[in-house]
């Protein structure tokens, strides 16, 4: 697959193309968000379960951390490639789920670790006082420990979100949508078309920045007591 070198005459950025294709751009952005959202949602769900198991049975943490760590270490491309034959890539639905399995597995390490660290980071004195007041495990967790752990959890979600947004661009190799579509499309034309690539990259970075900020604001709104400390 040898690419023809771009002509120096090609302009770096073609605004016309952008204005002409705004609907496609929007479509792909929404697809990108959809892929990201599903991955984060499922990832969070799974991570909460795994974290709960780790907190319940301390000995489970090490293997869980090792497993999610291995998934994280293996490059995203390879994870897609390992999952693809199992789920198949014939239909759009198959492609979607192949991508989702890989994306979700990537978020697990960050989320599980941050949730566990967040809950364990609750000062022992606080938990003890709560128990002394009569809170039982379930209520203690939900009403006391989780709220205090929110900053750590949100921090994990932010990292996971930004990571996933970047990884979704790679799913374009599977033929999926998202902003990676532009990156690949611009690359695979007979003459490389920089505008598309730039749009793809800039928008995915922009998307990551917006989501990151949004989650930061969400975190702040959920933890009014931290604002009182002047944080």
């Amino acid at each position, binding site marked *: 697959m040898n*690419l023809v*070198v771009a002509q*120096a005459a090609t302009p770096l950025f073609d605004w016309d193309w952008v204005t002409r294709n705004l609907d496609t751009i929007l479509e792909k952005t929404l697809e990108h968000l959809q892929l990201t959202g599903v991955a984060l949602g499922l990832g969070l769900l799974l991570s909460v379960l795994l974290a709960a198991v780790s907190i319940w049975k301390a000995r489970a943490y090490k293997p869980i951390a090792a497993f999610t760590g291995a998934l994280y*270490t293996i490059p995203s*491309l390879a994870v897609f490639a390992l999952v693809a034959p199992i789920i198949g890539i014939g*239909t759009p639905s198959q492609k979607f789920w192949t991508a989702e399995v890989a994306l979700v597995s990537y978020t697990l390490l960050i989320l599980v670790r941050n949730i566990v660290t967040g809950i364990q980071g609750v000062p022992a004195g606080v938990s003890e006082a709560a128990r002394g007041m009569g809170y039982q495990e379930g209520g203690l967790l939900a009403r006391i420990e989780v709220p205090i752990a929110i900053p750590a959890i949100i921090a994990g979600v932010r990292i996971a979100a930004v990571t996933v947004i*970047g990884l979704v661009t790679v799913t374009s190799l599977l033929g999926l949508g998202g902003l990676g579509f532009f990156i*690949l499309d611009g690359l695979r034309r007979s003459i490389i078309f920089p505008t598309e690539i730039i749009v*793809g990259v800039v928008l995915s970075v922009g998307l990551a920045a917006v989501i990151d900020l949004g989650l930061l604001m969400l975190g702040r709104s959920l933890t009014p007591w931290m604002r009182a400390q002047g944080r």
Partner: protein
Amino acid sequence: MDESTRSIMDFLADVVAWFSESGRWLSGDGIIPRTAEHLWLAILPMAIAIALALPLAVWLGHRRIGEFAVNALVNVGRAVPSFGLLILAAVFFSRSGVSLRFWPVVVTLIALAIPPIFTNAYTAIVTVRPGSVEAARGVGYTENQVLWEVEVPIGAPLILAGIRISFLQVLATVPLAAVLSSGGGLGQYVVRGFARGTSGLDEVFAGALLIAVLTLGADWLFTKLEPLVLPEGVRRLSSTEVRARASVS
């Protein structure tokens, strides 16, 4: 759905067949040369990134300045999609007629490798207990000696952790370069296989297995190497303290 008509065993048989094809391992396009290429495309950018980032990070950490830069670098390093960056680099390099197999990849990887190395090295130096640093000055070490005799050895585990994170990240990004040309180390198998659609899944899987083995193997190697490189007294420092300080990018 093609796959449902074939069992898992059939598929795995295909994969094994792929591995045992003649010339699969040693020919020009074979596994061994591609693994070597994969490693070279990771090690070279790492060496350059370390040479650029480490001394600067360590020096800034010692002088306790540049904290803003560090924070910015962490955020930037996380947000930039490596795939997109790679392609962009290819775009710019292609205008100058340079081979897309090597330079765009190396330059992108250097940029990718720097943030974890830099931020971890900086944090490593900055979090050394002030008592140790003051005592070091008090015994009469010069500023340089304080840095290299005391701060760096104490910070070594964290510095090494940063290098490890960086290396694994770089190793993971190399396969993406296969999109650009015939390079990308072991990633070429995956990309090529995907391009052929469902029929190429055996190559895709094989390539993925090879990549997984390589990256997990590299991770394991690092854990074995760490005790050899770190001074003994530092290893005894509470390992939980080190892990707590280690950042994930």
